């Protein structure tokens, strides 16, 4: 009986014998010792919580629930719930309003799980797992073998030592590790395969923590700009503590028949302290990376190059204006933009010609020709801020609009980029490899273990081999054990008496 225990606990490494002082303390605290202080009890409880796989199940399930809530927020499912059951509608409104992934609750859950993964998923199990790998207990009992539910007896004509040696040879050939101990006239056996597979759970769970750490690193030290616009021919500083700037030298686009863009390309030059350091043509799936900063092609659009001066000739604006950022009621089908020159008391609206002249022509109150733009200046300082002046300009034309002069230089285009820097990428790559590697090892090379006792037969000089897989509730382990024993029994080295003896042992035999 006393030999049984360690062997039994090996089948459940999560409940392996206490591996730390703290855990030992928790046992006594929980059961016998009333003299322990409150603090110890609390610490023990917390420790046990973090060690518990049962708690891990609930934690992962809770995280999954948060993910589901967040996922559905991006759908119309809650809305239809509210439509179906009216009184849920305040709840549904809150649901849509709750930014799950940036909430404190979500962060706390992740933090809790990171700790639990480290403590319960790894730290607490490490020594138990290491023992199962490095120093498994060899001696066992017939009673334990019967308890596995998969034991069987083989009868050999050879004496104990020969049979044990034959088994050892056969199993080593099959790449099993074989451990043998002689106890009186019996030989106790332990053989296993893929023992290091038990370690796979460590890279896997560490990878989970690394992903969380990576997320924090990225949020803390990285940046991401979603709408980084550069008109053709101009350059723009990236900022965020870098000395980098991007110049859009040229932009090209091609279309398929249906009018969808087939491909568009931006020819960029990257400037570091105004010195060109890289140049590349980037497309949607082919970004440019320099010094940890990546520039992605995102989209593009129409722009106009204008110059605005006041009546003394001082420039108020000189550059490109991206169209399409604004929709004007004067022509909803046209690309338009607003240029805010409020320090000078003026807000400019610029409207391009109609994009789809055949679509709802009655809405177009401007009727611009190709290559023309409509420019309107609203004087914010005027009574009610409503004084306006407007003009239609063709390329290279200039108009005086009250206190300002606007010159339309030319049509141009802009390209829209995303600029991002994510210093956690190497971490993510390492974590991905660890995660997949750990899973593969755990799943595809499972640790297989077999225990056995070779004892002298009560009649004759033969021996009896009692074998059992350590595969509680593991059908696959049993199946492998069966096919292994079949192969052993059909091989010559065991010198089996008669195949009819290869029967599953009856309970209590």
């Amino acid at each position: 009986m006393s030999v049984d225990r360690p062997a039994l606990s090996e089948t459940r490494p999560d409940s392996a014998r206490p591996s730390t002082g703290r855990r030992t303390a928790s046992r006594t605290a929980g059961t016998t010792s009333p003299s322990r202080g409150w603090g110890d009890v609390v610490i023990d409880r917390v420790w046990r919580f973090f060690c518990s796989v049962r708690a891990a199940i609930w934690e992962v399930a809770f995280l999954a629930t948060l993910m589901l809530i967040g996922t559905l927020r991006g759908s119309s499912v809650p809305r239809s719930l509210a439509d179906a059951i009216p009184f849920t509608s305040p709840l549904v409104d809150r649901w849509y309003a709750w930014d799950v992934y940036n909430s404190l609750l979500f962060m706390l859950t992740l933090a809790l799980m990171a700790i639990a993964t480290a403590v319960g998923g790894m730290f607490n199990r490490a020594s138990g797992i290491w023992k199962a790998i490095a120093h498994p207990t060899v001696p066992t009992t017939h009673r334990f073998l019967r308890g596995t539910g998969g034991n069987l007896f083989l009868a050999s004509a050879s004496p104990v030592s020969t049979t044990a040696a034959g088994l050892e040879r056969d199993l080593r050939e099959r790449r099993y590790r074989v451990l043998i101990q002689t106890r009186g006239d019996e030989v106790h056996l332990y053989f296993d395969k893929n023992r290091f597979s038990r370690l796979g759970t460590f890279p896997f769970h560490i990878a989970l923590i690394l992903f969380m750490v990576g997320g924090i690193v990225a949020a803390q030290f990285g940046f991401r700009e979603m709408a980084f616009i550069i008109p053709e021919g101009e350059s723009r500083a990236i900022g965020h503590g870098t000395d980098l700037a991007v110049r859009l030298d040229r932009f090209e686009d091609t279309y398929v028949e249906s009018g969808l863009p087939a491909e568009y390309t931006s020819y960029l030059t990257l400037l570091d302290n105004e010195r060109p350091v890289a140049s590349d043509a980037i497309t949607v799936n082919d970004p440019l990376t320099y010094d940890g900063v990546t520039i992605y092609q995102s989209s593009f659009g129409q722009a106009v190059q204008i110059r605005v001066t006041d009546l003394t000739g001082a420039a108020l604006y000189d550059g490109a204006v991206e169209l399409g950022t604004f929709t004007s009621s004067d022509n909803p089908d046209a690309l338009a933009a607003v240029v805010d020159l409020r320090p000078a008391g003026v807000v400019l609206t610029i409207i391009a010609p109609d994009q789809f002249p055949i679509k709802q022509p009655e809405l177009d109150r401007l009727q611009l020709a190709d290559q023309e733009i409509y420019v309107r200046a609203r004087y914010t300082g005027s009574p009610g801020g409503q004084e306006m002046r407007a003009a239609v300009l063709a390329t290279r034309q200039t108009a005086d609009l009250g206190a300002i002069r606007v010159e339309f230089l030319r049509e141009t285009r802009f390209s829209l980029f995303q600029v991002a820097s994510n210093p956690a990428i190497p971490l993510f790559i390492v974590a991905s490899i660890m995660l997949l590697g750990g899973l593969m090892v755990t799943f595809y090379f499972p640790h297989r273990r077999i225990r056995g006792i070779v004892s002298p037969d009560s009649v004759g000089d033969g021996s009896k081999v009692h074998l059992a897989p350590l595969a509680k509730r593991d059908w696959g382990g049993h199946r492998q054990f069966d096919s292994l024993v079949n192969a052993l029994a059909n091989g010559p080295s065991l010198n089996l008496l008669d195949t009819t003896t290869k029967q599953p042992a009856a309970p209590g035999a």
Partner: protein
Amino acid sequence: MEALVKLSFYCFAATSIAIVAASACYVSFAAGRFRVRARVAPLSFSGAPSGSSVSTVPTGFGSGPTAASLGEFGTMLAWFGLAFQTLSLGMRITASRSAPSNMYEFSMVFVFAVLLIYLLFERSYREKHLGAIVLPIAVGMAAYVWSLPAESREVNPLIPALQNQPLMTTHVSLAIFGYAAFAISFAAAVLFLIVQRRPMSWLPSAAMLDDIGFRGVTIGFPLIALVLITGSIWAHRAWGAYWSWDPKETSALFLWLVYAVYLHTRSLRGWRGTRGAVILILGFAATIFTYFGNYVFGGLHAYGGV
């Protein structure tokens, strides 16, 4: 090209017929056994175990002749279905020269994957009863393909963001193979619950079904992990961010977490078995939700069109 696309669809029609017939065979194999057994039970099930092997695992073979040959027919038809589906996909890919990119193509791959994985399991476990659940799932997916408007069968060029071929092919196919593996786990879990409730000697043992359920997850879980990883690499190339909490991403992560819960239950005595099977069934519900997510989500992944 046009002709190939058409021919591919005709092959799919052949697949559909084969798997409908296979489903009928598998289902009546499972049910027909019931009749045959009821009649001969006192004779053939009076307790003689299969004594020829050392197996300690109840295998549950042996039944009436009619039922058994129905099972053989089912298997044969399922292999036919797989063969036609392979042809169909091959032609489609030749014609479009691109990875699957809309629900029509995804579902074609799903039918292929679920047949392939199922047949491999059937061979490995020598167990046909799962077919009575898995094949109808394949038929359901085929029916969904038929319900799609005819335009979706045409080959369309992709928008630039979806044009990174090898990565996208990997990403999408891995996901679909993962879903197909979860379908096997689902079938095993359903049978498991049936067997638990009312042990039926001709059905596979609960222990074997538990193992099949687990094996399905050992295929699907790493695949979905890879899907999340390749997906974020792709998102990085196309949209400039590895992870943007897009509903399609989060629903895949949700799915993954459900199966992580399942994997943890396997190391707990009280949780293994029935509760594990229930989680597998929930997991498959989550799989379907993720698969058809394009219908309920906006977001970046809507670009490919439904």
